[in-house]
């Protein structure tokens, strides 16, 4: 039964995402995960402060249900389908150690950032700030990795290609220029 705990190679994961997106299309929906964040703002009463949140979020109930499913999928995977260890290219390990992250090849997420017992002010700012940028950027760009990266590019949308280039510019600036100041 060991094979069931093995991580999926890219040629399983990638096609699975494509099939998932096509399946959604056929049942009449468009794959895009960050839209849920807008719905959550709307549910929380954001419409009172900004028109942007004045929309019929109930039409997005299917996507919110999908979001809850995504959490259930995570629970099932971590508990029954995985040994919860991610092997990455070993050449990155020394660099990560310099940043104080010694868990590469031993965990799924670095506990140095995500473990509850390491939740100091710095990590709170890091997590909150990371989330803030993701949420703001996704809505500004009109989509995230799923909406632009998969749905948009599959539909040959030039705006999605520009957004992806932006994602990579941002990610590269963060990891190569800003990490030495943050960690």
């Amino acid at each position, binding site marked *: 039964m060991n094979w069931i705990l093995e*991580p*999926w*190679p*890219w040629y399983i*994961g*990638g096609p*699975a995402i494509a099939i998932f*997106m*096509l399946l959604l299309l*056929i049942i*009449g929906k468009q794959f895009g*995960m*960050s839209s849920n*964040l807008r719905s959550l703002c709307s549910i929380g009463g954001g419409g009172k402060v*900004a*028109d942007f*949140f004045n929309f019929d979020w109930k039409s997005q109930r299917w996507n919110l249900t*999908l*979001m*809850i*499913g*995504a*959490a*259930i*999928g*995570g*629970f099932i*995977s*971590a508990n029954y389908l995985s040994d919860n260890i991610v092997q*990455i290219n070993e050449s*990155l390990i020394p660099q*990560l150690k310099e940043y104080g992250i010694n868990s590469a090849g031993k965990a*799924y*997420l670095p506990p140095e*950032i995500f473990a*509850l017992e390491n939740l100091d002010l710095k990590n709170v700012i890091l*997590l*909150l700030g990371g*989330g*803030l*940028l*993701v949420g*703001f*950027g*996704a809505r*500004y*760009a*009109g989509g995230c990795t799923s909406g632009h990266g*998969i749905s948009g590019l*599959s539909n*040959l*949308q*030039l*705006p999605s290609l520009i*957004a992806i280039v*932006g*994602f*990579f510019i*941002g*990610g590269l600036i963060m990891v190569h220029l800003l990490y030495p100041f943050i960690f």
Partner: protein
Amino acid sequence: MKTLLYLFLGTIFGIIMYKSEAASWFRIYEMFNFASFHMYGIMGSAVVIGMIGVQFLKKKNVKAIDGSELSLKPKEKGISRYLFGGIIFGLGWGLAGACPGPMYTLAGVGYVSIFIVILGAILGTFLYGLLRKKLPH
């Protein structure tokens, strides 16, 4: 019934995100260091197969099962919002190592700290809603 279908599909999506390791901070770090083909393979193969699939469905004029047109809204033209929005998103993706799909998956795994990322993402979305009219699009 429909709720169950979406719950089921969402669960499959969560399993794909977790098992393919696209939800791992380490994999995102590795990707931005160009140290492995893994994430590029995932996104590249998803896009190639997605492209073939979408073009096929369009060519055959396939309708959704309820008879409506496929939800393939063209994106509005423009550059600034996609480029600036994209860069801001990328900065966050590189830092938190999670994009909006995997965030929910990791919450289900039980990482309490990921709720801070989700809270941040909701706040960021809210902030965009407030500032939208002042931003170049």
